[in-house]
């Protein structure tokens, strides 16, 4: 799969697009997406105006920056009550990173006192390949919103969390085609006492996902996030190795849901999970998009817990080599 559609829900609330001159009707119940359409991105600047005349395009229109649109949003009645924002395409055709967006959001901190949820980077593949999506150091953003509870970022290129300390964050999601070991290190050394949901899309080495099992060891030891109930190590090409390391890991004592989905889990990793004394204590195990054999899938049914074994995948063979693909990479 890849992201082909914009998200329709985040942190339990529906997401709708906000456009200039529209009212904000449900600031507490709805998440508003602020995104530049290609129409807005394509407006004219003085030097593109020359090109416009050269190519004979239709009537000129002003180019809109993401920050301009965001400021219009902030000036709209009820904006100060908004609890959730989804940041869509902010780029102006260029491969511009998210630093300017983070800056705008930081500046708006006093105008959004109720903001508890931010999704940074709801771009589909038609807008930008996930591995090409350039992020930045997002710690100023998290610091600016100490009341934030849910944070999701898509794309791990140039992503950094700095030295993060956040007293209220409950949900942290990093969706990526390749999550670097250095970013994982930052997350695992962050002070997040309220964290309940940690979801890392590890991706593949070719796209920056260079973490190995030992990089995750501090997490597996189970002392980092005392309130953790959901652990997602998704979309990973080292899913088997992680499963083996995790099978007897103390972290399993606290969590209710283990999400291994979208990765390359095969019978090797599955056997480790099946024989783990801790897995049956979970409420749910999710391995959908996996490479396990039918026989092994059957065994999961006898674990006595809810297991999602949907979307079985087949290995692909090229030049006598077998390949297993994660769900999202590129």
């Amino acid at each position: 799969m890849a992201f082909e559609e914009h998200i329709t829900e985040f942190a339990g609330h529906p997401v709708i697009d906000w456009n200039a001159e529209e009212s904000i009707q449900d600031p507490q119940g709805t998440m508003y997406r602020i995104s530049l359409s290609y129409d807005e991105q394509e407006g004219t600047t003085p030097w593109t105006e020359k090109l416009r005349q050269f190519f004979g395009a239709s009537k000129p229109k002003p180019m809109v920056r993401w920050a301009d649109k965001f400021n219009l949003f902030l000036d709209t009645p009820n904006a100060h009550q908004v609890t959730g924002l989804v940041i869509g395409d902010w780029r102006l055709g260029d491969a511009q990173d998210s630093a300017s967006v983070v800056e705008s959001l930081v500046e708006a901190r006093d105008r959004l006192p109720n903001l508890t949820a931010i999704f940074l980077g709801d771009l589909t593949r038609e807008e930008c390949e996930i591995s090409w999506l350039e992020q930045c150091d997002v710690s100023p953003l998290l610091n600016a919103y100490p009341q934030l509870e849910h944070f999701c970022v898509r794309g791990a290129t140039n992503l950094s969390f700095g030295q993060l300390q956040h007293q209220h964050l409950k949900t942290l999601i990093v969706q990526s085609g390749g999550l670097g070991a250095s970013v994982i290190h930052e997350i695992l050394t962050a002070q997040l006492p309220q964290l309940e949901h940690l979801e890392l899309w590890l991706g593949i080495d070719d796209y920056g996902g260079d973490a190995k099992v030992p990089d995750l060891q501090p997490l597996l030891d189970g002392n980092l996030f005392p309130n953790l109930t959901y652990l997602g190590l998704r979309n990973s090409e080292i899913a088997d190795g992680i499963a083996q390391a995790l099978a007897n890991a103390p972290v399993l004592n606290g969590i209710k849901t283990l999400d291994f989905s979208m990765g390359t889990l095969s019978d090797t990793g599955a056997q480790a999970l099946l024989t783990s004394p801790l897995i049956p204590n979970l409420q749910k195990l999710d391995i959908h998009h996996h490479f396990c054999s039918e026989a092994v899938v059957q065994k999961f049914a006898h674990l006595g817990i809810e297991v999602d074994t949907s979307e079985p995948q087949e290995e692909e063979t090229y030049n006598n080599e077998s390949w297993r693909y994660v769900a999202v990479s590129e």
Partner: protein
Amino acid sequence: MSQSVNDPHFILIAPPDSNRVTLFQQALARLRQPAACVVSYLDLLAGRIKLSNIVRANSLLRIESPGQEFEIEKALLALGASVADTENFARITAQEADNLSFEKGRILWPRQWYLGFCEALRLIEQQLADCAGFQLMNAPQDIALMFDKPRCHTLLRNQQISVPRSLGIIRSFNELVERMQELRCFRVFVKLAHGSGASGVVAYQTNGRQQQATTTVEMVRHKGELRLYNSRRLRTYHDGREIAALIDELCRHNVQVEQWLPKAGFKQKTFDLRVVVIAGRVQHIVARLSRHPITNLHLLNERSEVEAIQQKMGNTAWQAAMDSCERVMRLFPRSFYAGIDLLIAADYRHHAVLEVNAFGDLLPGVLWQGQDTYAAEINAVLANQSPHIAVSTN
């Protein structure tokens, strides 16, 4: 029911064995109309048949796609060999065209093919000049224009139809890279100027450090010559030299380069719409869903319900998109139908016209008001509903 010589009757100019002919004959039979007389392109080009001997008063003439039949392709290439061109695109002699042997999917001198096809369309016009009282369902000059993507794009843009931005004349990969930087446009579609379907289409993107080209085209090096083949399997090239070789080769045959606008997603896929406009009105619509940037139907993509998409867009945005399609067809007043490829933007609000396909009405099994495209066209032309239909007064 007896037929008199002056009753309306259809004449198809087409490869006789094509499924388009079969389906059109079936549609006629279902409507209790006599079978159409089929004029083979090869017979026409070889002078074995003259339209003036066939066309009568009340003849309804339909020019069909010459299709992918190799003998017709060779004949059109040979015909194009002697046509002067505006620029130095890749050419072969008539003799070389004649000596070509069939290779599945190979892209053969599409610019020269186009010159030959235009010549064939001119031949049709010439022969019809001596006939009277017939109707043409699609005018040869309109077909020629629709098959010329740069010219068609310019027409649409000048008429304020929403289209993706063109990058202008591009004759090499280096020129493409320069123009993309100049316009700060980092994602483009490179299309053969005269290709149909997904033939010779490349979705190219770069961010200055990385680049990739997703395409239906396979490159094969044969005795120092680079040959291009259309395939159903999408390939992604990352290597700059490979991408440059591919784009340079396509440029030798003339290309149209447009900004790659983000398409909307539906059911975890991306899509565009094929909208068939008949007698000035939007009729049959299918969504072409894809897991890849290239959505053409013959790539075995799924058809899907359009209603959900319509609902998601809302009435105003949907109506604006449909209006654009009908406005496009008003630019071709002598054409009774065409299939328009319509992009719905990722925000489900904006739209853009991607292509106007002269022969884009082949949508077997897709019904609108109980009729397939061919039946709708036959009924409409018989009822002479269209105010646009060209009636020869020669």
